[in-house]
């Protein structure tokens, strides 16, 4: 599973980071620091990844296999 971020939508609310700081790192300005290639989700963390992506108030995140 990979987490991807639509950078044009991310507004830096940090709601994903509240679910997991490891899976949803933020940059110094509070925006998602996930790179364009996406972030590989470690096995066993899929539910947390989906939870964090759902938490985004502007639907900038996806967590898909």
């Amino acid at each position: 599973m990979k987490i991807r971020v639509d950078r044009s939508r991310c507004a830096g609310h940090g709601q994903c980071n509240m679910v997991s700081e490891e899976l949803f790192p933020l940059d110094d300005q509070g925006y998602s620091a996930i790179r364009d290639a996406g972030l590989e989700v470690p096995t066993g963390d899929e539910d947390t990844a989906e939870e964090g992506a759902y938490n985004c108030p502007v639907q900038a995140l996806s967590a898909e296999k």
Partner: protein
Amino acid sequence: MASQPFNRDMFNDFDFEDPEFNERFYDVLDAFVGRCPVAHSTTGDGYHVINRYKDVKQAGQDWRTFSSAKGFQPNRDPQMPLLPPEECDPPYHNSWRNALNPYFRPEAVAAFEGSLRDEANHLIDQFIGRGECDFVPDFSSKLPGNAMFKNLLGLPPEDIPTLIKDMDAGFYGPLEERTPSLNRAFTYLGDYLARRRDEPPRGDVVDVIAAGVELDGAPCPWSDQVGIITDLALGGIVTATFVMSGGMFHLATHPDDRQALVGDPALIPQAAEEFVRYFPPVVALGRSVTRDVELGGYQFKTGDFVLLNYASASRDPDAVNKPTELNIHRERVPHSAFGVGVHRCIGAHLARLELKVTFEEFLRRIPEFRLRPGSQPTFETGILRSMKSLPLVFRSARKDGKQP
């Protein structure tokens, strides 16, 4: 365009409660954005107001430096209990938000659409035959209560009219009735939560509020759980009421925009987002500064109280193109009306659904309306802004839509 000077020194001695701020709301906001990144107030213990988009955003994102642990109101009565999750910081804040958020996602609130549409039509039925209404008491102060109390909190339907009446009187009634009315409403909600704690779970958000979360490894205090249900009710009622009212005021006075939405209801969601930007129900919310820090060219000290002026930030030309124009055709509407950062409005998707249903149903059944001749809406402003009256006139129609 230069505006008249203000009677009050808005930049150095601001007061949210000054009637001049209410009357010249947009003039003050635009002066702040243009010429005053940080305004100051000597009211009570004093406070500062952060006015530009990028500074509001930076402070909103930096919850460690700009803390909510001492509440969002300037010169707060120390007797008033704090309302989590709005008035607390991570990690406790996150425990609550992570528990509550699933019930506020777009997919979750979509389940309420049918019920909201029925309620909107029921409210319209009450006045459509009269050819006139006061949109605030007759519609916009009622629909959000239905969304919150019936759909989200699952209250017994027979209790809702009294509760809405108390909430309504708490905000719009005679001054001396406001506090007792609100207290009745909050006591009712606390009693309801206690009852639900002893009942089998229903799979709704009240289950997780009644179950509570951990605070420092122990169950959180019951008073916080009552605070949560209170904060949800407070945050979800008067806010949506104002945006609905503001949008309807705009459409009553701008026939081109009204006709555009009647002709193409698909434009309604983006128009509603613009109404949220232009008619911000939450003008500003406060934070306490936890370390000496520079922002917006001002040196803040530990212990300072600051307000994040969401209303002015949404009119910052650095964030929004031609911000003083209400343009229902904006495809993207950048604004800070739902707040910025970890405390961002939990109910934004529910509010958007209420707005969409409101404008779709009202315009479908009453496509032509205007302000009652000689009348203007009346506003009230502090850190929240509300509309108290919006008299509309239209051609009366039968409830069934047939010509009389």
